[in-house]
């Protein structure tokens, strides 16, 4: 064996898959590549990714993509037109507004809700879970009891009661959903923390004099992230459905905002004769939450092959 081993060209397939990476970056990229390959094998997961990317695209360019004004309709000529009518691909609602344009602008609200709930709930769950798992003892017992209490509540009903107290509105709906969604994250983060809190690298860091907050922040949390991301992605569909449910009950985004759940509620009155007013937004919700479910399933299978196929 010669010393001058042929080094594969950087960023080539061989370089990525090399079992003797020469730098930390190569190792990281290689690992990401392997995960991506496992993920990309799954066609449904790719479909999920595609749906999500399309949602992001539509939300980003809503102003350009929407053919009509989402809030102001043509009351005189365009009330309750069926899908395919002149210039209105998905038809119009009772106020003469183009449903497609409203759906396109509504994607922003959906993303807004999902992202904000994730940004609020995931860190709370992460902090509660890691602190609880690392500290153990009384702190663990108290934090987990609180988590279990919130876990015991039916999500939608608790969110309903909270919004009823806070008053309807999209911000309050987001807050209510966030309050109901952090407990599972705390449970997961705690379980992950328990698996390595007594491992040697944690002891080593502690011997080097790191304070408990530093250990939790710098060494425990990053390791909990991947399972948390999978869980959050899988939960996105549920968050979208809860938000739509709140919107449907008139507790989420208020008219004339084109929130999909509220659009279904306003189309309910015409369901017998003008079915499309309620049907189209529901279809949008179905597609987007299906996308998140497929993506979440794919991520889980790719990051944790043990669970695959179960």
């Amino acid at each position, binding site marked *: 064996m010669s010393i001058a081993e042929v080094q594969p060209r950087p960023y080539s397939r061989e370089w990525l898959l090399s079992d003797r990476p020469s730098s930390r970056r190569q190792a990281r990229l290689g690992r990401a590549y392997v995960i991506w390959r496992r993920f990309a094998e799954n066609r449904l997961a790719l479909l999920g990714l595609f749906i999500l990317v399309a949602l992001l695209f539509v939300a980003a360019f809503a102003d350009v993509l929407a053919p009509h004004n989402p809030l102001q309709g043509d009351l005189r000529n365009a009330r309750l037109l069926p899908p395919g009518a002149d210039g209105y691909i998905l038809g119009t609602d009772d106020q003469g507004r183009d449903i497609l344009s409203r759906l396109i602008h509504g994607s922003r609200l959906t993303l807004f809700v999902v992202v904000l709930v994730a940004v609020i709930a995931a860190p709370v769950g992460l902090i509660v879970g890691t602190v609880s798992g690392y500290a153990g003892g009384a702190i663990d017992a108290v934090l987990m*009891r609180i988590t279990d209490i919130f876990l*015991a509540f039916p999500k939608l009903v608790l969110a309903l009661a909270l919004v009823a*107290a806070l008053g309807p509105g999209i911000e309050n709906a987001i807050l209510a959903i966030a309050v109901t969604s952090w407990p599972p994250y705390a449970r997961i983060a705690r379980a992950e923390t328990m698996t390595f809190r007594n491992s040697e690298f944690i002891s080593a860091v502690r011997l080097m004099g790191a304070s408990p907050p530093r250990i939790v922040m710098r060494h425990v949390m990053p390791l909990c992230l991947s399972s948390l991301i999978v869980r959050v992605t899988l939960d996105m569909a549920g968050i979208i459905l809860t938000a739509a449910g709140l919107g449907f009950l008139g507790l989420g985004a208020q008219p004339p905002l084109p929130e999909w759940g509220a659009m279904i509620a306003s189309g309910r009155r015409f369901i017998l004769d003008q079915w499309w007013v309620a049907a189209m937004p*529901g279809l949008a*919700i179905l597609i987007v939450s299906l996308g998140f479910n497929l993506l979440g399933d794919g991520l889980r299978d790719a990051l944790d092959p043990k669970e695959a196929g179960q």
Partner: protein
Amino acid sequence: MTISDTNTALRRGGSRARRRGLAILGFLLTVATTFLGLLAVTFFIGRVVPIDPALAIVGDRAPAHVVERVRLELGLHLPLYQQFWIYLKQALSGDFGTSVLTTNPVLTDIKRVFPATIELATVGTIIGAVLGVPLGVLAAVKRGSLIDQVVRVIGLVGYSVPIFWLGLLALLLFYAKLNWVAYPGRVDIVYEYSFTPVTGFFLLDAAMQRQWDVLWDLLRHIILPGALLGYFSLAYISRMTRSFMLNELSQEYIVAARAKGLSEARIIWFHALRNAAVPLVTVIALSYAGLLEGSVLTETIFAWPGLGLYITNSLQNADMNAVLGGTVVIGSVFVGINLLSDLLYRTLDPRTRNR
């Protein structure tokens, strides 16, 4: 048996009894703290979150002296911990205040509407379990086949579809277009006076009173919302059944059963399913609890006079007492079912007993 043997056996028995006692004590403590937490959260929502709880209860159009009276009745001038103590005492004696909308005590209202929700959730769970378990078993046995794919898609759509939207479309198709089912509601107005329910579970009452035409009408009303909820529990139950069955089918006792020459059907439906049934009981119980919650939106669509409709109606009228009372009741039932399924699991699975 020597004396020392009996001694150790006795000692072991004694420590086991003590462990058992401790486990039961811990269990009761869990129940108590969870209920306490439940009430603390609803107290927080009702009293701390609104800027003025009195206004939240009577509405902002109420005259000032009414607001002042409600404020005194609620004890809002007292410190928070005393308020909580009073709330706790009232809630434990079943007093959730008076509903502004119906002017009845909230508990009376809930007693009246809850059977309808239970009936609906039960029908839904039965449909979900009766269809979901065999589908899940088939999907696991014929892994990767067409039926497996179909079950997977059914599950995925079930997890992704907004229930109220599916309900609306179902009404449009089966009631408006095909006229197979009755219009939203629980019973036809024709029978409202000739039929006197006793237990509140209409299906049961009609069957016991041998009013077959009423029973038929009730079935025509319950079938659509029941099937809808059933679909959601089917999505969950079939997915879990599949995963449990896959786990069982890879065990060695299955190989042994095959080696003995048992028929494949017997192996699947008797040996494997029986072992998968233990965690399945938990899953079905959880899906039942989930349907109680899912009924909030379903009842709104189908004008089903249950707890869900009661809560949403109260919400629309800013009737906080009713909303919070309903939340406590659904939450308690939820907790109760969770704990019950936990207990069932421990009783059914011998492996968990000595832990």
